[in-house]
C-alpha cells in the first residue's frame, strides 16, 4: 500500500527541484518576470508523520533536509532513532551527490549555494572543504600539463574575489544615510522608513538630472555666455526674477548658436544638445520608473481574495527591525488591540441597515464627494484667475520695487496654502461620513488629496501652456520657469513650516495643554503626496529651468534632515499596521501614473505644439522646439555616411504605421500574459483541492 512507504522513498520519487538548480536566478528576489517566484519545492512528508519516526534524518541534501532537521544535532546522532539498518547509506550518498553538484558549479554559484544552506556553520565548512578537495582532485585529474596555467588562473581568481569582497565592504559607505535609515527603522518601524527611502530615491532622480544637465547644457553655455547687466539684490533668491533672468537658471539665457570655442574642434550645437539632453533624461526616467514599478508590483502583489489578516498578522507582522524598548512595548500593545478589534469584528453580527439608514448613508457619501470635488474646482478657479491677474502685472511692465516683487509671490503662496489646508477639510468630511473601516477612510482621504493636487497642477499647466505661451511677453519660457521656481521655493518653505506646526507645536500642545491628544504620529500619506507634488513640479520645470533639479536636490536634502529631526524629537511610532509593501508599490504607482505621465504630456505639448519665443532661448526663431531635430535631419540627408540615421528617423520615429504596429503587438502580448495568469490561478485552485483530497484519502486509509 502506498501509505506504508518510507517518507524518504516517497520524496525521492518527487521531481527534485532543489535549491542548487535555482542558483541560476542570481538573487531570487530580483525576478523580473510576471510570474510569481518559483518557491522551493517541498516533499510531502507531513502526512506520513503518523507512520514515520517524528525525528527525521539529518539529510544534508537541501531539498529535504530543511524540513526534517529539527535541531542542529550533528549527523551521527540521527540514525539512533531510525529502524532501518540502511539509513547511513542514503545519508552518505546524499552528501556525495551534494558535494559532486557543488563541485561542478562555477565559483560564485557555489558560494551562493553554500551560503543558502540551512545547516550549522561547522557542517557548511565541512562541506565546503570537501568540495574544494573534490575540485582540486578534478583539476589534478584533468590537466597535468596545464597545471601551472590553471594554478595561475585559480590564484588570480582568488585574488579577484578577495578584492571584490574588500570593495563591497566599502560600498556601503557610498550609500547615503545608511546608518540614519537604520536608526529610523529601529525606532519607528518600516512604514515610516519607507517614506525616507522614497525621499532618498527621488533625490537620486534629481541628482542624475542635475549631473547630465550640468555636463551637457550648462557648462557649454558658460563658454557662450553673454554678460549680465542686471544688478543683484537679495530679493531675487525668493522671486527668481531680476538678476537671475540673465543667468543659466532659465531657458531664456541659452544661446541658439553652435558653440565652437576650441580651434578646429567639433562645434557644439546647443539646440540639439538641449532637446536631446532633456529627451534622453525623460526616457531613462521612464524606463527606471517602469522597471521599479513592475518589480515592486510583482514582488508585492497580493491576491486580495486569498489574503486575509489573521494568519499573516500573527506570523508575519512582527517587525524584527525594532530594537527600542518603548517601541517594542507599543508595537505589542497595538498588535493586541488589533487582534481584539479583529475578533470583535468577527463576533459581531453583520449590521443590517434599514432602508432609510442606507439611503441616508449614500446621501451623506454623495454630499461629501460633491463638497470635496466642488472645493477642488473652486480652488482651481481661484488659482486660474489669480494667475491671469499675475500675467497682466507682468506684461504691463517690470516693477522692480518691493510691491511688484511681492505681488509675484502671491500666486505660489496661495497655491501652497490651498494645498496645506484643504486636506484638513477633507479629513473632517471623512469623520462625518462614518466609514465602516478606518482603512477605507484613509484611502478616500488620500484619493481626494490626489485629485486636488492633480487639478491644481493641471490648471497651472493649462495656464502656462495656453495663456502665457501666447501672450505678448518677451520670453514666455523664462516666465514659466520663474513661476515654477517660485512654486518650488514656497512649497519647500511650507514643507518646513508644516513640519514645525504639525509636529513640533502639536507635540507641545499634546504634552502640556491638552494631554489627551498625546504625541503626534508621522503622517506618512500626506508627506509622500507632498514629495510627489514637489517632484512633479521639478519635472515640469526641467525644460524651462535646467538648474531646477539642483535646487530641488538641495531642498530634498534639507527636508530629509528636518523631517528626521522632527520625527525623532516629536513623534511616536505609528499605531496602525501599515502594509508597507503595498504602500511602497502604491507610492511608485502614484509617482508614475498621474505624475510622470502628466509631465510627459505637458513636455510633449510644449515641444511639439508651442512656438518658442522669438528673442530668447536656444530655439528662437523656429516654429516649434521639435523643428530643431527635423532641421538637423534635413542637414544630415546631405551626408551619405548618416543615411541610416535619416532612414530610422523617417521610418521609425515619425512614421505612424510603426507605432500602430508596435501598439498592436504590445496589446497582443499583454493579452496573452493575462490569459496565462488566469490559467495559473485556476491551476492553483485545482492543486489546492488536490492536496486536501490526497491527505484526506491517506488519513482515511490509515484509520481504515
Amino acid at each position, binding site marked *: 500500500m502506498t501509505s506504508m512507504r518510507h517518507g524518504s522513498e516517497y520524496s525521492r520519487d518527487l521531481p527534485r527541484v532543489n*535549491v542548487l538548480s535555482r542558483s541560476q536566478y542570481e*538573487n531570487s*528576489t530580483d525576478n523580473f518576470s510576471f510570474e*510569481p*517566484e518559483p*518557491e*522551493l519545492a*517541498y516533499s*510531502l512528508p*507531513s502526512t506520513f508523520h503518523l507512520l514515520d519516526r*517524528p525525528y*527525521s534524518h539529518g539529510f544534508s541534501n537541501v531539498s529535504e533536509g530543511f*524540513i526534517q532537521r*529539527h535541531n*542542529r544535532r550533528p549527523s551521527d546522532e540521527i540514525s539512533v532513532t531510525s529502524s532501518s539498518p540502511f539509513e547511513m547509506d542514503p545519508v552518505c550518498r546524499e552528501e556525495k551527490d551534494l558535494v559532486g553538484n557543488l563541485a561542478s558549479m562555477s565559483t560564485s554559484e557555489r*558560494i551562493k549555494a553554500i*551560503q*543558502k544552506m540551512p545547516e*550549522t*556553520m561547522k557542517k*557548511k*565548512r565541512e562541506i565546503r572543504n570537501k568540495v574544494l578537495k573534490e575540485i582540486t582532485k578534478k583539476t589534478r585529474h584533468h590537466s597535468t600539463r596545464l597545471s601551472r596555467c590553471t594554478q595561475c588562473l585559480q590564484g588570480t581568481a582568488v585574488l579577484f574575489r*578577495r578584492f571584490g569582497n*574588500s570593495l563591497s*565592504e566599502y560600498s556601503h559607505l557610498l550609500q547615503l544615510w545608511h546608518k540614519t535609515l*537604520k536608526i529610523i*527603522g*529601529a525606532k519607528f518601524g*518600516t512604514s515610516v522608513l519607507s517614506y525616507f527611502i522614497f525621499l532618498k530615491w527621488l533625490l537620486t532622480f534629481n541628482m542624475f538630472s542635475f549631473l547630465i544637465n550640468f555636463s551637457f547644457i550648462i557648462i557649454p553655455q558658460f563658454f557662450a555666455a553673454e554678460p549680465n547687466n542686471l544688478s543683484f539684490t537679495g530679493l531675487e533668491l525668493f522671486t527668481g526674477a531680476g538678476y537671475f533672468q540673465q543667468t543659466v537658471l532659465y531657458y531664456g539665457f541659452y544661446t541658439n548658436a553652435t558653440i565652437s570655442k576650441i580651434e578646429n574642434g567639433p562645434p557644439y550645437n546647443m539646440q540639439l544638445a538641449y532637446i536631446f539632453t532633456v529627451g534622453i533624461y525623460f526616457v531613462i526616467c521612464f524606463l527606471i520608473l517602469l522597471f521599479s514599478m513592475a518589480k515592486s508590483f510583482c514582488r508585492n*502583489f*497580493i*491576491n486580495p481574495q486569498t*489574503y486575509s489578516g*489573521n*494568519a*499573516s498578522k*500573527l*506570523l*508575519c*507582522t*512582527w517587525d*524584527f527591525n525594532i*530594537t527600542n524598548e518603548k517601541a*517594542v*512595548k507599543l508595537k*505589542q500593545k497595538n*498588535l*493586541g488591540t488589533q*487582534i*481584539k478589534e479583529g*475578533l470583535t469584528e*468577527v463576533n459581531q453580527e453583520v449590521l443590517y441597515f434599514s432602508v432609510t439608514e442606507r439611503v441616508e448613508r449614500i446621501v451623506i457619501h454623495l454630499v461629501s464627494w460633491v463638497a470635496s470635488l466642488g472645493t477642488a474646482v473652486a480652488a482651481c478657479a481661484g488659482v486660474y484667475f489669480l494667475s491671469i491677474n499675475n500675467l497682466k502685472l507682468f506684461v504691463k511692465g517690470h516693477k522692480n520695487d518691493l510691491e511688484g516683487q511681492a505681488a509675484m509671490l502671491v500666486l505660489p503662496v496661495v497655491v501652497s496654502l490651498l494645498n496645506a489646508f484643504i486636506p484638513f477639510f477633507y479629513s473632517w468630511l471623512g469623520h462625518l461620513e462614518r466609514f465602516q473601516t478606518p482603512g477605507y477612510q484613509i484611502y478616500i482621504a488620500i484619493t481626494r488629496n490626489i485629485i486636488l493636487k492633480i487639478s491644481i497642477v493641471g490648471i497651472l499647466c493649462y495656464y502656462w501652456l495656453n495663456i502665457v505661451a501666447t501672450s505678448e511677453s518677451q520670453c514666455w519660457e523664462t516666465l514659466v520657469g520663474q513661476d515654477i521656481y517660485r512654486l518650488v521655493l514656497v512649497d519647500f518653505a511650507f514643507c518646513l513650516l508644516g513640519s514645525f506646526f504639525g509636529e513640533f507645536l502639536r507635540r507641545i500642545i499634546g504634552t502640556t495643554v491638552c494631554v489627551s491628544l498625546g504625541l503626534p504620529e508621522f503622517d506618512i500619506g500626506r508627506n509622500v503626496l507632498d514629495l510627489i507634488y514637489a517632484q512633479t513640479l521639478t519635472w515640469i520645470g526641467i525644460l524651462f529651468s535646467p538648474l531646477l533639479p539642483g535646487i530641488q536636490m538641495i531642498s530634498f536634502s534639507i527636508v530629509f534632515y528636518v523631517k528626521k529631526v522632527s520625527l525623532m524629537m516629536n513623534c511616536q511610532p505609528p499605531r496602525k499596521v501599515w502594509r*508597507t*509593501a503595498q504602500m511602497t508599490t502604491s507610492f511608485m504607482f502614484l509617482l508614475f501614473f498621474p505624475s510622470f505621465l502628466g509631465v510627459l504630456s505637458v513636455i510633449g505639448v510644449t515641444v511639439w505644439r508651442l512656438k518658442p519665443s522669438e528673442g530668447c532661448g536656444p530655439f528662437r526663431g523656429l516654429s516649434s522646439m521639435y523643428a530643431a531635430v527635423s532641421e538637423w535631419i534635413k542637414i544630415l540627408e546631405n551626408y551619405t555616411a548618416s543615411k541610416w540615421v535619416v532612414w530610422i528617423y523617417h521610418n521609425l520615429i515619425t512614421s505612424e504605421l510603426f507605432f500602430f504596429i508596435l501598439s498592436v503587438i504590445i496589446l497582443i502580448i499583454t493579452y496573452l500574459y493575462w490569459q496565462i495568469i488566469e490559467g495559473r490561478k485556476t491551476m492553483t485552485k485545482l492543486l*489546492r483541492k488536490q*492536496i*486536501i483530497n490526497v*491527505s*484526506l484519502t491517506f*488519513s482515511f486509509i490509515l484509520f481504515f
Partner: protein
Amino acid sequence: MGNKQTIFTDEQLDAYQDCTFFTRKEILRLHGRYHEMAPNVVPMDYTKDPDVKLPMQLIINMPELKENPFKERIVESFSEDGEGSLSFNDFVDMFSVLSEMAPRELKAIYAFKIYDFNTDNFICKSDLEKTLNKLTREELTAEEITLVCEKVIEEADMDGDGKLGFADFENMISKAPDFLRPFLPGPVQV
C-alpha cells in the same frame, strides 16, 4: 586593515566569507562583539578553532536582541546543542541569517524553526498560542487566544492535519510580502 589581524587565519576568513553573507571586516567585528560579552572565556586567537560556547543568558542581553520577544527561540534555533549556547560559528551564522543580505527562503526556514516552540517540525496550536502570547504580552484572554489560533490554522493549513507544516508556512508567507521586512536587525553596530 590588510593582513595585520591575528585572530583568524586567512583560510578561516575565506571559509567564513563563503559560508555567510558577511565580509572580512564584519566577521572581525562580530568576533569583537562575541569577545566583549565574555572576555575571560573567549580567546582572541581563534586560529586553532577553540571550542568555546557562550550561554544563552549572555547572548540574549545583546542590544540587538534584548527587546525582541523571540530572543530565546532565536538563540535556541541557532545553537548546535539545542540548549541555547552558541559557539562563534553559530553566532556568526545567526547574524548572517538575520542580516538583510540573506535570501527570503533562508529566513523562512529559520522563521519556521523559531515559531516551532516544541521543535517537532510543525507549528501546532500550542506553538501558535505561545507565539501570540509573546507578541501581545499576554493581553488577550484565554478564549481570545484559542479563537485566533483556530482561525490561523483554519486559514493556513493546506493539507488538513490540524497543524502547519513547512509547506503551509511557506505558502502563507508567499502571500504576505511584508514577510521580508521582519527579519532585519542591521549588521552588528560596533
